């Protein structure tokens, strides 16, 4: 195989064109459903079922967004989702950091066994724990309350695993130096271990937030009234009850997904850094 300079350049250009073509296809696949949701939210209900489908709203109907708040209680759902999601995210971060620290820095009997148990929870699908958890919640009298939505998710095997890895990357000398400098475990954790693991914490925090925000099955089972229903459940109730308000449901879906969009855009850089950078250098 011999390649002239011109041939090589042609191949380079061809490679780049292929790459961009692939990226464009992928972008369309990802973005098209979102675009259709936006379009449908802005179309009157009657036009949504129109054949061929309308791909551009000529008379956008902005009122559906306010209707989502006034008629469909979207405000309450958003508030509930915010409470539940923030509580779960904070709880998962706190418990994961503490547990991961113990696994990484403290020697205690059966440490590895307990850690493997924590990891094993990752292999149990949510569907398998729904019934026992439901009974527990009911026994506590938590049915249709916020604790029912929050407490079962207050600890996370993934979080423990990720943070333990991050903490193991912290040189032991740092812990020893801090011990000589008068820092106990908790203060070392707050002043050194956590700041050094910020990229991983941020990545896991976002991950936890998205997971909590998008929960569907469990909140559906343990809620009964709008006072505790989260966005996905609220929208689902609405669509079940009100088929001719499908444009409102599209609008609600968009509004409900908005926090996630914002989160991803704001923390985009953190996420990338969390994936690429080692947590400790020099």
């Amino acid at each position, binding site marked *: 195989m011999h390649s002239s300079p011109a041939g090589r350049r042609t191949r380079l250009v061809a490679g780049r064109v292929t790459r961009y073509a692939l990226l464009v296809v992928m972008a369309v696949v990802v973005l098209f459903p979102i675009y259709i949701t936006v379009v449908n939210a802005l179309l009157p209900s009657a036009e949504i079922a129109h054949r061929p489908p309308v791909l551009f709203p000529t008379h956008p109907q902005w009122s559906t967004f306010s209707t989502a708040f006034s008629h469909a209680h979207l405000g309450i759902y958003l508030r509930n989702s915010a409470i539940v999601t923030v509580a779960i995210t904070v709880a998962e971060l706190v418990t994961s950091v503490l547990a991961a620290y113990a696994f990484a820095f403290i020697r205690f009997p059966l440490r590895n066994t307990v850690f493997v148990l924590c990891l094993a929870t990752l292999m149990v699908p949510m569907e398998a724990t729904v019934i026992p958890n439901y009974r527990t919640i009911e026994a506590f009298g938590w049915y249709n309350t916020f604790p029912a939505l929050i407490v079962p998710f207050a600890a996370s095997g993934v979080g423990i695993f990720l943070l333990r890895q991050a903490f193991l990357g912290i040189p032991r000398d740092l812990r*020893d*130096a801090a011990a*000589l400098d008068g820092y106990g475990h908790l203060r070392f954790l707050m002043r050194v271990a956590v700041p050094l693991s910020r990229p991983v914490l941020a990545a896991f925090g976002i991950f936890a937030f998205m997971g909590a925000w998008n929960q569907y099955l469990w909140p559906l089972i343990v809620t009964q009234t709008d006072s505790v229903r989260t966005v996905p459940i609220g929208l689902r109730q609405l669509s079940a009850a009100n088929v001719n308000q499908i444009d409102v449901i599209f609008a609600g879906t968009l509004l409900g997904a908005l926090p996630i969009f914002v989160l991803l855009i704001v923390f985009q850089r953190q996420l990338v850094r969390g994936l690429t950078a080692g947590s400790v250098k020099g």
Partner: protein
Amino acid sequence: MDGDLSPLAGRDAASHLLERATATSVALEGVSKSYGGTAAVRDLTLQAGAGELLVLLGPSGCGKTTALRLVAGLESPSSGIVRIGSDVVNDVDPKDRDVAMVFQSYALYPHLSVARNIEFPLRSRHVPAAERTRLVGDVADSLRLSSLLERKPGQLSGGQRQRVALARAIVRRPKVFLMDEPLSNLDAQLRVDMRAELVELHARLGTTILYVTHDQVEAMTMGERVAVLNDGALQQLDVPAAVHDRPANAFVAGFIGSPPMNILRGRLVGEGDALFVAVPGGRLALGDELARAARRRDLDEVQLGVRPEALRIELGAAAVPVAGLLGTIAATVTLVELVGHEQNVACRLAGSQLVWVRAGAGGAPMRTGEPVVLGVTGPVHLFDPRDGARVEP
């Protein structure tokens, strides 16, 4: 101890920090430490006097770091007693031992600025902010770090990091400094400079220092006394000159010096009153006292120690023994190392043992393969091959 600091208010606490320059002795008494099955430190007994700079010297893996960690309280001994001053500290928490350690890796906090790194130990001891700033400023001045206070450790050179690590140790005026090969990551020139600075710092602070190194030049130039370790056990503890001139055993002899002392297998041969050591290719006469000591030990085989400086190369295999020499050995030049204006020449004896010779300036350049006669100008050392112990004349 930080317990006696916290009740004191503001300025008092800080001035207390500054005054406490009274030095303390440190001792390990019969200390052993093993990890699982392997012993890192074996029955180690040594003491650094108050205000002394004691160097722990030994090859990699001989337990130097472990010894320091035992003093710091980062490891607890499997057996034996650790003493700081007159107190047994075996059960005292690291933070209450009032020792500061400069780690082999420096262990700077990468996310904190130089200033924050230095004041880190003060924060945990509740020193008020104004005092912290002043103390950090003072230490930074004395270690020429003032212009770097806002940088992160990642933005510093090795020498600068090393000074930050020192500053962090100094700032709280501990009773004892533990320094674990603080210069090992620096280039040769910087190492020479920092050596002088550390010695000067020690003179200024008067604090007891346990200084770990595997670099014998560092040990010999900095230490008031040197403790040579091997395989977790103490080999010799003495002033540098004595470690060099009267090595306690064959290990110390073969470790100190550059190139280190030649250790040759030989046999004792008596001729009337005189006693000789026969080595392949020659023999040399022992002085009266050494001969008596060797006879007393009832030795047959011996290890003969000759420093490269105590050998002289006489060209030509047939050279006649010259007056003033203890003896001569026939050998062949195998390697010539030029060190500045000196030559280190490796010669092989008939029995295939290798001998280093320090040939001074001006001598004719050696060629490999050339047969030579080595003249022994002395002094020589004898070691008992059974345990390597020195035969003391």
